[in-house]
């Protein structure tokens, strides 16, 4: 199979080069920022709040650590009985302890179980333009941590907010995520489908509840 693959690879590349009429391409044009395509965002936090409401992200803004713990405790308490899966970092270890989280599996112990009720992670960044969370497998406890459970809880800081998708992608590059993290994703609201009569149903295969606790 290997040699067949090699010959196809060479054949395809040869066909592409013949089609383009050159074997060395011109250097790519400098990246033009998509300026003027999207309206400016004068108040990112305000925009983030509005977009979260529109995409059904449950956003709670807290003033300090104490409030964050309170909110987290409330959300955990509301969950049906069962395991919660938490990204294993010191900040979340501390928060979960303070919020009296029970039945915890940590990301260092392996992937999330199918039946877990919630996952708790941090985010790489937040995006105001679309009310999105930027996550990565390296920085947020793996891949399943943001999609397996019916409820995904994100603990974040306002400083993590960037205005646009463009800036979020620049951040991905700056942090060298492509080289270090096999998965990077932008999550915008909870899972949904409109495949039946174009009627929007919230909660398909991914989480039907996305709760973001955003501390000032």
């Amino acid at each position, binding site marked *: 199979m290997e040699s067949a693959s090699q010959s196809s690879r060479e054949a395809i590349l040869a066909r592409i080069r013949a089609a383009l009429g050159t074997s060395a391409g011109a250097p790519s044009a400098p990246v033009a920022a998509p300026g003027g395509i999207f309206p400016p965002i004068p108040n990112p936090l305000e925009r983030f709040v509005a977009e979260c409401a529109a995409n059904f992200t449950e956003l709670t803004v807290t003033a300090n650590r104490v409030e964050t713990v309170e909110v987290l405790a409330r959300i955990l308490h509301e969950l049906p009985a069962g395991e919660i899966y938490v990204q294993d970092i010191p900040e979340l270890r501390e928060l979960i302890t303070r919020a009296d989280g029970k039945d915890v599996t940590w990301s260092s112990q392996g*992937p999330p179980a199918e039946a877990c009720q919630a996952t708790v992670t941090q985010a790489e960044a937040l995006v105001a333009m*679309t009310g999105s969370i930027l996550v990565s497998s390296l920085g947020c406890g793996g891949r399943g941590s943001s999609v397996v459970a019916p409820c995904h809880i994100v603990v974040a800081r306002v400083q993590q907010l960037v205005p646009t998708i*463009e800036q979020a992608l620049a951040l991905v590059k700056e942090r060298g995520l492509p080289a270090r993290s096999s998965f990077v994703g932008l999550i915008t609201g909870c899972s949904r489908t409109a495949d039946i009569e174009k009627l929007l149903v919230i909660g398909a295969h991914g989480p039907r509840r996305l709760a973001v606790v955003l501390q000032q």
Partner: protein
Amino acid sequence: MRGTAAQEFLRQSVEKTADLEHRRIIRWNIDNYDTAVNRGKSRFADWQAARDRCQQVKREALARLDDYLLQFEKQVVARGGKVFWASNSEEARNYVTELAVARGVKRIVKSKSMVTEEIHLSPALEKAGIEVWETDLGEYIVQLRNEPPYHIVTPAMHLTRLQIAELFRAKLPDVTADDHQSLVAAARRALRKAFFSSEMGISGANFIVADAGMIAISTNEGNGRLCTSVPRIHVAVTGIEKVVPRLQDLAVLWPVLATAGTGQPITTYSTLIGGPRQPGEADGPEEFHVVLVDNGRSQLLADPEQREVLHCIRCGACLNACPVFRHVGGHSYGTTYQGPIGSVLTPHLRGQDFNHLSFASSLCGACAEVCPVRISLHHHLLENRRNAVRTAGQPWKEGMGFKLWSWAMRSASRYRVLTGLARRAARILYSMGYEGSWIDPAAAWTAYRAAPAIPRQSFRQWWESQDGKR
């Protein structure tokens, strides 16, 4: 037109255009889509500039396609992934099937991928004794019904909730109610078992990001995320033309794809994947394979007139804008890709048997108007028609007819004589009541329309009679 594909298209389209219930459902779906898209476009300061940018990005991508594919491959391999280059459907199919068999795969979960439809992957896997579960809800529904997807973005748009409820009650164990929520919940329960018991997940890719060395997948349901997170092997199958040069390009492409596809600002899950699980990661597949499919694309790349057809980002907007699609429905095409892009692309991928699709258009241009990457689809239909005449030939009667027409039109006196004769004959026939009968040469017209009244005098006869009264 000749060949069974053309005949089948005609047969199905005749049936579908008469189906008023189908027309009602599709009209309703598309009206909803139009409303959502108009709302979505208003989020852009300059939608036209967005289209320009997307067109520019795709032009750049194709201009150095070989370099970008190599840049992508290098990074995937560095992370422990594998890249397989498939010249055609068969090679792609064989690679995935042989891999699955070699790894002892019994069950596969699939997220939406038009390329996997194009290469007929599922039947090959099933023949090898492997269970394949479509996990995109629309794809899952049509899979249960044993029919192909109706539309490249919304595969089940031809079905009503009640039809889907009936289907689920027949096929799934615990369907309790008929409402949309309950149906989606039933699908979730069934598919969740599949996600967590499958050894392989297969996905497509919306984009191949060259500088980051990652594929990008846009979904709403989360099925794409689960397919690429839970099973121990992830295979991504994609066309070679999906390249974009830079990660930054997604800043415009993601919102444009979502807006044109469904009217959303962005899809719920905009995912980038570059390899199998890396050291230090909590979970993820042990193996990552990318299958790059050519299957006629490099040939299209070599066509300077039609290369831009490869810019397509598979948003489905042209299908929704097309009045022909709306009336004949997605299944009538009999092809993986339907609507205007399907009509333009299919002869290049599957040959002369599908030339008829390029003729089944009124050339209204609505497709080109909505295309986010500015492909002049209706002009490419004209080019396909010209190519069809030159290479495959058209029915000899038509060829003779146009030669005669051309000869007649090259002389004003010939034109006058022949048209005068034709008009006189028509007036006689219609006055005798032969309109629509077997004698009527315009029967193809009069089958559906009242015949026009034939004027006594042509314009030029009137003009000449006015001589001196200018």
